[in-house]
């Protein structure tokens, strides 16, 4: 299909989608209206049980099975990314023996700010996970913050420093344990918001570290020229 034909097909189908979407949108209840059937059925229960963060408790109680599915998607995607990028790495290692990671040319400004920021962001991540039950935040957000905080050490220093403080097998087992714990909690003890928050935080953080580790390998592993 040539580019012109493809664009033509898109314009036709896009116009169709636009018309149908607009027709559907004007039939929706008004923006900001008071008719929220799902919320109205959930809220009285949440208020009766003195839940501080209704969103967390919906995610881990009412929608616990959905969240379980989501966690499994997360694990599957992380696993798939690791597998896809690993074969390539094996090829590279067969082709030549010695490898090194790309040079570290970091300006002092970057280095200092990175090192100063790292502990603050780590603590913030823990805070977001731990207080997800009470205040805005929770396992997802905190897990992402924790997972990305570790990589500041690369932004501030260089790759070997990151590799030292980030033992991959530990994160692999962390991911597996967190996923297992979460499946157990979701199937048997749904509603344990605090425990599930922690499990999700661990799972998301570990999955993120694993995926990013593979991307780092792809981007920075260079063959040493003899």
């Amino acid at each position: 299909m040539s580019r012109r034909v493809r664009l033509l097909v898109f314009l036709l189908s896009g116009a169709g989608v636009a018309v149908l979407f607009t027709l559907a949108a004007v039939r929706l209840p008004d923006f900001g209206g008071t008719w929220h059937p799902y919320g109205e059925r959930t809220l009285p229960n949440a208020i009766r049980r003195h839940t501080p963060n209704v969103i967390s408790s919906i995610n881990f109680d009412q929608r616990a099975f959905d969240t379980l599915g989501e966690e499994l998607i997360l694990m599957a995607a992380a696993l798939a990314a690791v597998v896809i990028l690993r074969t390539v790495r094996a090829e590279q290692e067969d082709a030549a023996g010695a490898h090194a990671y790309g040079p570290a040319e970091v300006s002092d400004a970057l280095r200092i700010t990175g090192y100063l920021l790292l502990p603050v962001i780590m603590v913030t991540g823990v805070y977001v996970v731990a207080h997800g039950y009470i205040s805005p935040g929770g396992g997802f957000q905190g897990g992402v913050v924790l997972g990305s905080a570790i990589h500041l050490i690369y932004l501030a220093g260089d790759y070997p420093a990151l590799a030292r403080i980030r033992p991959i097998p530990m994160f692999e087992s962390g991911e597996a344990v967190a996923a297992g714990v979460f499946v157990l909690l979701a199937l048997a003890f749904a509603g344990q918001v605090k425990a599930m928050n922690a499990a999700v935080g661990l799972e998301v953080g570990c999955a993120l570290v694993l995926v990013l580790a593979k991307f780092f390998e792809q981007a920075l592993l260079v063959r040493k020229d003899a």
Partner: protein
Amino acid sequence: MADALIVAALVLTAFMATAVVLTRDPARQAIVLSGYGLALAILFLLLQAPDVAMSQTAVGTVVVPLIVILAIHAIRRHHTREPDRRGRE
């Protein structure tokens, strides 16, 4: 006032989404994408969803740009280090 704020944030979000799509160079697009994440975070807080705003901030400002940049780096390095076997470049 809240309505005006929501309209402004919606227009800003739509504008940035269009800008992300129309930026063709992936490295520059990653920068615009990061800005789009910020616009979404403001919109979500205006829609009274602080949890979602935090989630969008965490994902949109660090993780996705980092993955995109690393992918671009890996692809570009591959292109320059191993000239194409079929002589395409």
